């Protein structure tokens, strides 16, 4: 069943890729690109918040670090885009390890952990906003240069395909995690950290590994965001919108599931786009829809949409057994 989930997700990505190759209107392609960036961000969040039960409100800290590393390294130091991408991921992971070290040393979890991550993201936002090195409040641009080496393409479909590959790799990473000893330990400490310790789990170490991995993946999303829009400022890169988007997509789709972040991101952004186009001038209506979906999820599908279907299936097979 887990394997079917992975195959479903991969098939979906392939269909998106084929659609793009056959030809999509520009605005739809842009929406799909944005969806995949949010998916990647949410997949990063999911590694820590979903599997590990450590819900962060500050994944912007990692997203922004990736985005700024990508921009600053290329613009100010003339470093190659791909190298900058790797550095961005590494720096994001480092920021994750730093925040993790401080939080987990102190044994923070639940809302305390959420708040501390939020605080770190805000500090980084303020720093990036006031520091010349990061372009201050004016933000920063990446020079327009087309070609594979620059990770920029005159035909945006290529960028989209590369994004799809990254999302697929993140799916494989989640799948590996679900099947590994590390993943079992991570899930165990989410379910009950005392019991996990009694069974020999070094919970500090496992949490550190999880936040590093999670931060690296979200930083990758940040790098690709910067490379796609070629402009960032502090409110975009380190703004809490992205923290919320990441956690929303993962929770609505199904936190701690393979396919949850993908479902959540596609659904939320898709619905958001639909409402925007129907509501015309009413600003913020898409946010109202987001809110309603979250309320519905909390009320009827506490394990997200993925969990909702898993539940249905379990109930149906239980009913079949009883019959």
């Amino acid at each position, binding site marked *: 069943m887990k394997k079917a989930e992975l195959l479903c997700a991969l098939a979906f990505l392939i269909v998106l890729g084929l659609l793009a190759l056959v030809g999509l209107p520009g605005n739809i392609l842009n929406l799909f690109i944005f969806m995949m960036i949010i998916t990647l961000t949410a997949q990063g969040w999911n590694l820590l918040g979903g599997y590990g039960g450590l819900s962060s409100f500050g994944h912007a800290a990692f997203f922004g670090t990736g985005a700024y590393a990508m921009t600053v390294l290329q613009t100010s130091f003339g470093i190659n885009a791909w190298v900058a991408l790797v550095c961005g991921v590494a720096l994001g992971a480092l920021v994750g390890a730093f925040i993790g070290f401080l939080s987990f040393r102190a044994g923070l979890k639940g809302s305390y952990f959420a708040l501390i991550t939020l605080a770190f993201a805000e500090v980084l936002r303020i720093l990036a906003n006031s520091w010349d090195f990061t372009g201050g409040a004016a933000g920063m641009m990446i020079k327009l240069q087309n070609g594979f080496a620059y990770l920029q393409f005159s035909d945006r479909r290529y960028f989209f395909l590369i994004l799809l590959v990254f999302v697929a790799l993140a799916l494989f990473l989640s799948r590996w995690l679900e*099947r*590994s*000893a590390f993943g*079992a*330990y991570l*899930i*165990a400490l989410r*379910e*009950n950290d*005392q*019991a*996990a*310790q*009694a*069974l*020999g*789990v*070094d*919970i500090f170490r496992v949490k550190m590994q999880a936040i590093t991995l999670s931060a690296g993946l979200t930083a990758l999303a940040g790098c690709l965001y910067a490379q796609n829009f070629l402009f960032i400022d502090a409110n975009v890169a380190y703004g809490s919108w992205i923290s919320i988007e990441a956690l929303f997509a993962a929770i609505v789709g199904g936190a701690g599931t393979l396919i949850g972040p993908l479902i959540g991101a596609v659904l939320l952004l898709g619905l958001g786009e639909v409402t925007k186009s129907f509501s015309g001038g009413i600003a913020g209506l898409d946010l109202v829809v987001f809110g309603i979906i979250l309320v519905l999820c909390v009320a009827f599908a506490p394990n997200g949409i993925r969990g909702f279907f898993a539940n249905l299936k379990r109930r149906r097979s239980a009913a079949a057994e009883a019959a």
Partner: protein
Amino acid sequence: MLKAQNLTKRFSGLLAVDNASIEVQQGSITGLIGPNGAGKTTLFAMIAGFLPPNGGSVTFEGEDITQEKPHLRARRGLARTFQIVQPFAGLNVRDNIAVGAYLHTKDPDEAKRQASLTAEKVGLGRELDKLASGLTIAGRKRLELARALATRPKLLLLDEVLAGLNPSEIRDVLPIIRQIRDEGVTILMIEHIMQAVMNLCDTVHVLSQGKMIASGEPRIVCNDPAVIEAYLGHGAAERIRSEGKANA
């Protein structure tokens, strides 16, 4: 094998464990009994590393582990169960037990295979795919036991694994515990059910109000006036003796 010396634990005003010492011989089943609130679970928590003691030391296989973290003690072969069961509620029985098995193998298939074998051993073989949250009390107690067992401990600390079970369930579990010992695992168990203590234990220690008040063979300890008084209140031993005479 295990030596806890002069352990003391204070919870703000309350002296939960007061200078208590206990020794467990390799290969034995050692009992720890005492009235409610005597400090038995607290003593266990200090031995397993979940609570830092205010004084005293814990030695395991000749090494001082007083300062060691719980997961490191588990890796040494010191496993515990929890009186208030702590299942990984969202996971099925197999995955619950596999977490313990990962201590010795990093291979998921092997861990799951071992988990199934361990489940078999404690009588959970038919519930492998059931969610832990869907188990009965008896099932959850067995799960506690299975998870600890899957770490392949040298010393197993059992905190009231029989509490909440009905007599027939208890009869089923007693031989399992004995078999675990026969396979070479030393056991230290907290138990209220005297039938089990009499049946299984080579030695028992009695804790009352944080202090060790007696230890020795179960039969002898249970007739110790100090122990009877600890359970039944001051003067109880005297009363029983005179009633016994009157009946005779």
